[in-house]
């Protein structure tokens, strides 16, 4: 994913509903490819279902977006978020569902949004995740990828993808304080968080479609 750092900065980009549909499709594709790895990561410190959960969720998202493509960026994200909530279950369903729904609601009904607007939308989504999960960066969760990614979005989609990836890697030495991995106490140290890893995939997909 290093080459994504090279993606051009896109503060000037204007993103329409089709772009968001492409993002979700790319996310579904990369998650399909990486599902086994996500489940593997969820095995030593979780319950070995994260890959399947994400796969099921994004397959449902892709299906609903293909069947009835919403007219606005906000509507795409809201529909995707609702679909995740209705099809994933587990911790990741409501959390990712809330991330996208809140981001979508923040984008409002504009037919096109700027990269900066997307960044504020995602930022609001990440705040909602932290609130719902009662979690913060450093807890060894998806937030450890999401928070730096949204911050780096100021620079470029590629930078965001790279930051998410780095954030996911940074969860390895952490002791989990939220989610299933927290039950392991110190034994959670030394493993990469599956949710942070899937978050990195979502930003990789974003950089890919932007890129």
């Amino acid at each position, binding site marked *: 994913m290093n080459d994504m750092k090279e993606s051009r900065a896109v503060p000037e980009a204007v993103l329409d509903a089709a772009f968001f549909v492409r993002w979700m499709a790319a996310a579904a594709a990369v998650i399909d490819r990486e599902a086994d790895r996500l489940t593997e990561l969820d095995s030593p410190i979780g*319950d070995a279902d994260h890959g399947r959960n994400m796969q099921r969720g994004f397959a449902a998202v892709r299906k609903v977006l293909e069947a009835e493509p919403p007219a606005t960026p906000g509507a795409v994200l809201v529909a995707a978020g609702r679909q995740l909530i209705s099809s994933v279950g*587990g911790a990741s*369903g*409501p959390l990712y569902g809330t991330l996208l729904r809140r981001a979508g609601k923040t984008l409002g009904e504009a037919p096109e949004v700027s990269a900066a607007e997307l960044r504020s939308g995602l930022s609001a989504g990440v705040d909602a995740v932290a609130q*719902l999960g009662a979690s913060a960066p450093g807890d060894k969760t998806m937030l450890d990828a999401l928070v730096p990614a949204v911050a780096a979005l100021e620079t470029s989609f590629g930078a965001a993808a790279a930051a998410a990836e780095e954030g996911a890697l940074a969860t390895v030495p952490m002791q989990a304080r*939220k989610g299933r991995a*927290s*039950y392991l*106490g110190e034994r959670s140290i030394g493993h990469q968080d599956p949710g942070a890893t899937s978050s990195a995939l979502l930003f990789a997909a974003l950089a890919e479609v932007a890129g």
Partner: protein
Amino acid sequence: MKMLINVAETVVGDALRGMAAAHPELVVDAENRVIVRRDAPVAEKVALVSGGGSGHEPLHGGFVGPGMLDAACPGEVFTSPVPDQMVRAAAAVDSGSGVLFVVKNYTGDVLNFRMAVELAEDEGVQVASVLVDDDVAVTDSTFTAGRRGTGATLFVEKIAGAAAEEGMPLDRVAAVARQVVGSSRSFGVALSACSTPAKGGPTFELPSCELELGVGIHGEPGRERRAMMTSHEIADFAVDAILADLRPQLPVLVLVNGMGATPLLELYGFNAEVRRVLDERGVDVARTLVGNYVTSLDMAGCSVTLCQVDGELLRLWDAPVQTAALRWGR
């Protein structure tokens, strides 16, 4: 890892179809993944709805029936169900007297049920929730997701189910459920990991000379790995871990629960050791249940749950129950 399945993707749906075929006394909606007792909604009765990941059978679907749950929502294997299932279940069983959600304390279950409460209330259903968090293996609960919900779920569903059957109002039923949670503690050990259909193999590697102490019911490793122990030693360890947290003043209900692959012969032998420790520690036993009730697919191992009961809780425990997995009385 071999499994008696077709493909991993359809495991839960297949099981629900098989359950429908075996239990005409239940309405099993395999597509929407809701199991409802056939006579629901029962007039004037608070309804109990529970649910959680699949792979813990007979929990929860096997506990649907008169005297226990009105409906259950099974998620994917080890994955919380989605809010839509819970809302659908609540709507199907609400007689107007309200619905109690029995939720095991896992982030996923908590978040999905929380969303379901909002949605169900939007539809005009009165909902209360009780969170089951009985596993003493999880400490430092302020810095973690808190204690897991495990074996005590059976006690909560049975006893609150009896309270509802008696016609208690929602707040009373919820209070009884919370009393059971407060009075219950569990501790589990694994002699082997389990294999989920999605992963196709063991969720962790456990050498043949070691066991995991303080495991949950999702195939997670425990808090500590040790050299293999005898049934005697495991009973000492598990019961003492529980008593260190809750020292019963009243008689207890004992659940000696198998994780799935431990033979009933061994579970009964383990119960002899559990009873011995309790006798040694001066804890009176009111009732004992031995069997595979809150399982972890094909994990070998067991858990002990104690629930201290006053006369009222014991009466509700003894009250009739008619479900696939738990039945007594008339």
